[in-house]
């Protein structure tokens, strides 16, 4: 085939390019993924009956802020990595800062605590189910965001898959935060982070095969 013939084929009747395609695809994905995750929480675990009391606690807002900032960082990174030639950029520092802040807070709390209560602060009452519930609640957003990315052009698929994993995992953590009664930073620093890490690792592993184009 002559390259000129191919150019003719591509240009003829090409019409205008779709506009705002990245925003539209991810917008659709978020609509389905976030609604799906939230519905999953309502139908399975439910919102914590004591949620009204939580709203008055700074520790609750610290937890939610951490999850929200990481969700935002994962989202922005995903949007950037969906385009050829765009690097993750400064948003990786936002994610790093959220992690560093949570870990620093956890260490301060542990250092301050009575040595006998430290193990309890890390394990809480739900350490064995927390990461899996976060991973489970992240599934709708994970699937939807992979769908979105598959229609775009990531050139680093491993990193793009990881970014989608951080995004959906952190969103799963935000949703789970409405049910989970644990508020101690040492607990969050281990089990919430592990819960977010599950979709991140799976995402980066699936990237190469699912996101090729």
């Amino acid at each position: 085939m002559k390259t000129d013939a191919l150019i003719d084929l591509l240009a003829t009747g090409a019409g205008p390019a779709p506009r705002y395609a990245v925003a539209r695809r991810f917008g659709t994905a978020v609509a389905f993924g976030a609604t799906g995750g939230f519905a999953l929480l309502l139908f399975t675990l439910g919102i914590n009956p004591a949620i009204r009391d939580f709203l008055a606690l700074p520790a609750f807002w610290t937890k939610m802020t951490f999850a929200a900032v990481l969700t935002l960082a994962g989202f922005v990174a995903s949007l950037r990595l969906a385009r050829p030639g765009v690097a993750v950029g400064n948003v990786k520092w936002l994610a790093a800062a959220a992690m560093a802040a949570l870990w620093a807070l956890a260490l301060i709390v542990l250092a301050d605590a009575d040595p006998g209560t430290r193990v309890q602060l890390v394990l809480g009452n739900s350490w064995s189910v927390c990461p899996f519930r976060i991973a489970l609640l992240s599934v709708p957003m994970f699937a939807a965001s992979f769908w979105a990315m598959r229609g775009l052009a990531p050139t680093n698929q491993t990193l793009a898959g990881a970014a989608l994993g951080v995004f959906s995992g952190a969103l799963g953590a935000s949703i789970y935060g409405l049910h989970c009664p644990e508020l101690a930073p040492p607990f969050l620093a281990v089990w919430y982070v592990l819960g977010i890490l599950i979709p991140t690792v799976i995402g980066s592993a699936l990237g190469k095969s699912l996101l090729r184009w």
Partner: protein
Amino acid sequence: MEQTAFRFGGLQQDGHNSPMTPVSPSGVTGSASAANFSDEVFAEREERLHALMLQAQAGDEAAYRVLLTELSDRLRAYYRRRLTTMAGDAEDLVQETLLAIHNQRHTYDRSRPLTTWCYAIARYKLVDFLRRRGRREGLTDPIDDDFSQALSADESDVTDSRRDLQQLLDALPERQRLSVVHVKIEGRSVAETATLTGMSESAIKVNVHRALKALAAKVRGSK
């Protein structure tokens, strides 16, 4: 080598650079002027290609044709420099990349340099090709392969790939094939094609889109 890689369009790879930054103030003298001159050439090229891309994205077919032709020249130079003993492969890659550029044009952000976007696609396709080739080479005799490619490298102005458009089209599902033949090869409008084939206009657009995606996949899989 890496330096030339970045000079695909004169801009760096990481996408943070504004297209206009390489332009130097005029009237600079001394040893720096040669570098400034080439920076200006690259900046001027970026400006021109970027303008063509905006017109093409808005639906200007003629601008799109000019743009793709220019890009194919850049891509040919880019791939030939990197695949010196494989002229046929270089042209295959040029075509594969043009298809990718078309199919992914919705991922171009007009506020960023066009050349950075194209370079990232070209590089991605090159890496993908080398990986596939590496996997194949484990199964065949590499010496024999190199020898035949060294001979074919003499045809220095091949702009023909080894694949056959007709065969690729024939392998498409009927509705996709019909849509492409009418709209893309015979140049009929979508409305005309709709009356001819009895498909709806939106079905034709979708079929053309899917056909080009399928062509890109076949082109990649055939190597």
